[in-house]
């Protein structure tokens, strides 16, 4: 309860109108969290942003030009699996987004990866999922066939 109050207070300070934190098991309580974009003064719904695309990444820089080694690692891993079509949001361009997504995900660092609207984790988690084979499985659930799987089948 205390963390709910603290989180709500934090978001009110940053201009977010509605915020409900995630449960500790990672499931989202509410579909939307709103914050105001300082640049365009247009309400942005993070809940919609993370659901609009199957794979969503909040990162520093862009997939073409990452500005952080950890963000770059996420881009490279997705590329290895043949995932090129995903939404990438550059938090360096928007400080409201940068703080908003940390509050929304209840996760203190960037990059952040979402699959079908569900928070997966950061660079470390994606890397371990890649190494232990879980990433191929999770992509399959999204209807994405990993390029590594295809490569493995072709080599047989």
């Amino acid at each position: 309860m205390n963390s709910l109050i603290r989180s709500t207070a934090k978001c009110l300070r940053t201009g977010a109108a509605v915020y409900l934190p995630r449960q500790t098991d990672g499931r989202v309580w509410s579909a939307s969290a709103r914050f105001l974009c300082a640049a365009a003064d247009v309400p942005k719904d993070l809940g919609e942003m993370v659901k609009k695309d199957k794979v969503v990444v909040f990162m520093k820089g862009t997939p073409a030009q990452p500005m952080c080694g950890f963000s770059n690692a996420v881009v490279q891993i997705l590329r290895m699996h043949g995932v090129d079509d995903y939404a990438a949001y550059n938090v360096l361009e928007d400080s409201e987004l940068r703080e908003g997504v940390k509050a929304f995900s209840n996760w203190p660092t960037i990059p952040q990866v979402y699959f079908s609207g569900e928070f997966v984790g950061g660079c470390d988690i994606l890397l371990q999922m890649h190494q232990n084979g879980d990433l191929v499985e999770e992509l399959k659930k999204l209807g994405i066939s990993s390029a590594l799987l295809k490569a493995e089948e072709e080599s047989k």
Partner: protein
Amino acid sequence: MLPTVLRCVRPISTSLALSRPVAHFRPHMDPDQSRPVERSITTKLTDKLKPDHLEVHNESHMHAVPPGSESHFRVLVVSSQFDGLPLIQRHRLVNEALKEELSSCVHALAIQAKTPEQWGSNPSLAKSPPCMGGSRGDHTVEEKLKAGRE
């Protein structure tokens, strides 16, 4: 031969940490006093997660921040508290333990969270990817470094 060896050994024995510049060397002080964030991270993770094995690495020198910064860390935590927990929950436990540091001076935290069994079968520390300069000119990082110094 022997006098040469002794001459080589002497400078090393008077320096407590090779990695730190000589200007920061204060022999009358406990060397850990100059790494408050690292100590705090170590203490909190030890208290909260009762790890079998813990490594806290300050990787700030690998990033575009001034020497002596405590902004980028890598932690390896081996704890039976992670048994049965998916990776994301393990990381959330670590994040929760270090909430204060993460909201003030720590800008990046790489986490490896293993059960004792996993550590036993693969006792290795992952390597961080090379920095791509994102912290340079990043006012959020500058604020965090300032918070760390105060």
